[in-house]
């Protein structure tokens, strides 16, 4: 996505198709264009990815509020982060990296592969 074609009014980071058989037990911080070797940086932080209720989104045995769409979907408004990174020259043209960092250290070994993310995309308007 080349968001440098004009100045967008709003920029959204869309994380969809998040599926897991069970809750991995800890949230993840979501960062865009995090520099290499850096694990957290408030300038690049866009929000948290929580898995609360994820096991119900792919449960076809009963009805759930919201209907269930076969996975979680989260949308982050990253307009301010985008504007800041653009002003600082840290928004590379047409290339965006998204990093998921555990918010807290695991208290027990966690199967990271248990969570799958279907698509990460950026919407501008």
């Amino acid at each position: 996505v080349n968001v440098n074609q004009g100045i967008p009014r709003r920029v959204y980071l869309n994380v969809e198709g998040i599926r897991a058989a069970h809750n991995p037990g800890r949230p993840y911080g979501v960062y865009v264009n995090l520099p290499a070797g850096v694990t957290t940086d408030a300038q690049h932080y866009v929000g948290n990815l929580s898995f609360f209720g994820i096991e119900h989104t792919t449960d076809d045995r009963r009805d759930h509020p919201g209907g269930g769409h076969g996975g979680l979907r989260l949308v982050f408004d990253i307009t301010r982060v985008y504007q800041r990174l653009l002003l600082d020259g840290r928004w590379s043209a047409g290339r965006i990296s998204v990093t998921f960092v555990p918010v807290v250290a695991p208290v027990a070994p966690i199967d990271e592969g248990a969570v799958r993310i279907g698509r990460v995309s950026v919407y501008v308007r």
Partner: protein
Amino acid sequence: MTTAAGPVGPGRWRRWVWHHPEWGWTPLCAAGWVVIVFSGHAGMDHPLALWPVMVVATMVPPALPMVRYVASASRWRRRHRSAAVFLAGELSTWTAAGLVVVPAAALAGSLPDGFLMTVGLAGLWELTTAKKRFLRRCHWTDPLPPDGWRADAACFRFGIRYGRDSLGAGWALMLLMVVAGHEHLVLMALLAVIAAAEELLAKGTELTRAAAVAVVGVGILAAAAT
């Protein structure tokens, strides 16, 4: 006095078409129904030949929300292509199922009480847990890449997956439609409405008991009328 002429935006109708690309596929369903009705009059009603037409006429309407999702998840210039590839996946699944459903319908039609047995089977399937599970899965969406051959492949895979779940939910109704044939066009239309309502409504799973009663009731009436 002068008036400032601002930029003229797209009209209401144009915006509606942009927001609802799925409605562009409804003429295909209408054409399918026209073929179904008139093929009976023309004597061209071989079930195997008519099966793909029945599939288009009855299984595209329940898929319209998914067509809209696929179109809106794609790049603007290829939204119609993505929708077409998705529908190709769904309809090819249903078309392939005809190789089983049509002979099964022929077998049922050859039995003395085959029609009533098929009515009972369709009514019973409405009451099963499996039917509800398939219906719920019909509301699931798959993430799609926005562009390129990966988008085509994902749209086709999504179409096949959706078609499989739709087939699981609606095979018994379709079997009854084939058995009913042109003799019971009203029953066929009613079954198509039931299949569409169950998939289109958010709580379609709550309709299955009423659908079972309607299928059995109208099926018995249709059998008595002939």
